[in-house]
C-alpha cells in the first residue's frame, strides 16, 4: 500500500547505499584507529629536525654555520663541535658565545642555547670552488623530558672562487645570538 508523502517539517535524509555506508564506516574506523595511538602520546621530533643544521659560504674563507632549534628544545654549548671534509683543509672555530646558564645537579654550571645559534667558521687551505662538507656534532634535549645522544649532521657548501666576495669587507657581524 502506498502512502502519500507526508510533510514532517524536516527535510528527508538522503538514503545511502550499502556501499556508501560501508565506505563511511571504513573511513570512520580507520580514522579512529589512527587516532587511538596518538591519544596521550607525545611525538618528539627527530634530532635533525629539533636541531636543524645548515651552513652557507659567506666568502672564500668563511662559512656561516647555524642551528635552528625548535621550540621546547635546547642544545648544550659544550657539546657543539665542527669538522670539515676533506680533512686536508683547516677549520677554525671561534669560541662559542655564552649560552643560558643552567645549574645542573650533577654537572654543575652548564650553558644551553634555544631558538637559534650561528657561528662563522674560518676555513683555511681549501680549494675554492670545490664542495666543502661541514660536519656538525651537537647534543640536546627536549623540555618534555627526553635527551638525544650526540648527533652529527652535515651540510655541503661551495666556497666561491677568489679571496674576497662582496660583503666580506663589512665589519664582522655579531656571530652568535639566542
Amino acid at each position: 500500500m502506498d502512502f502519500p508523502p507526508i510533510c514532517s517539517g524536516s527535510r528527508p535524509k538522503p538514503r545511502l547505499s550499502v556501499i556508501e555506508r560501508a565506505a563511511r564506516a571504513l573511513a570512520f574506523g580507520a580514522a579512529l584507529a589512527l587516532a587511538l595511538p596518538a591519544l596521550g602520546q607525545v611525538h618528539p621530533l627527530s634530532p635533525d629536525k629539533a636541531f636543524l643544521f645548515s651552513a652557507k659560504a659567506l666568502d672564500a674563507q668563511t662559512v656561516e654555520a647555524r642551528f635552528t632549534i625548535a621550540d621546547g628544545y635546547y642544545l648544550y654549548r659544550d657539546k657543539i663541535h665542527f669538522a670539515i671534509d676533506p680533512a686536508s683543509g683547516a677549520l677554525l672555530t671561534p669560541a662559542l658565545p655564552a649560552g643560558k646558564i643552567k645549574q645542573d645537579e650533577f654537572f654543575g654550571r652548564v650553558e644551553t642555547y634555544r631558538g637559534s645559534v650561528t657561528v662563522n667558521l674560518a676555513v683555511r687551505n681549501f680549494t675554492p670552488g670545490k664542495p666543502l662538507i661541514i660536519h656538525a656534532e651537537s647534543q640536546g634535549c627536549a623540555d618534555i623530558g627526553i635527551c638525544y645522544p650526540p648527533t652529527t649532521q652535515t651540510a655541503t657548501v661551495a666556497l666561491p672562487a677568489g679571496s674576497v666576495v662582496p660583503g666580506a669587507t663589512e665589519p664582522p657581524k655579531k656571530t652568535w645570538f639566542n
Partner: protein
Amino acid sequence: MALRLRSRVAFGTAAVLALAAGIGLALFDRTPTDTTALLALSLPDSSGQPQPLAQWQGKVLVVNFWATWCAPCREEMPEFVRAQNEYGAKGLQIVGIAVDNGDKVQQFAKEIGLNYPALIGGFDAMDLSKDLGNSLVALPFTLVLDRQGKVAYTHLGPVKPDKFRSVITKLL
C-alpha cells in the same frame, strides 16, 4: 527492511574490520616484541664485570636506558630505586643500561644509592632499543618485560610512577 539490516551489518562489519586492522597495524608498528637480541646481551657493570641479561630471565625485568648527561633520566631514577626496594623480593629486577662512561655512572650510582645493576652500553645498545620501540633512539627509554621475556610496556621519557607501578604489579 532486509536491505536496511544488510546495510547495518555491512556498516558494523566494515567498521570493526577497519578498526581492528588499524589497531593491529599501530600495535605492530609500535610494540615490537622480539627481545632475543636484548636478552642475549652481555654488558659490563660499572666495575667492568660482564653481566649477561639472560641471568634475570624469569623475573619481571625493567630495562632502563639512561645516561648521566640526560637530566630527565637522572630525575626519574629515584623512583626505580624505590620500586626495586618495594618489589625486588616479589621478582622485580630493574637494570639500567647507561650510554655513558663507567666513572660517571659509578659516581652517580653512589650519589643516589643505586640498588640495581647499572650496565655500561655504547651506542650499539641504544640502537638495540630502536628495534624495541625507541624509534628516535632518545633517553630515557624504559622497557618492561614479563616473566616470559615478552615486552609488556615501553615508554620514552620519564615514567609516570602510577602508571609504572600499575604495569609492574600486574606482572608480578
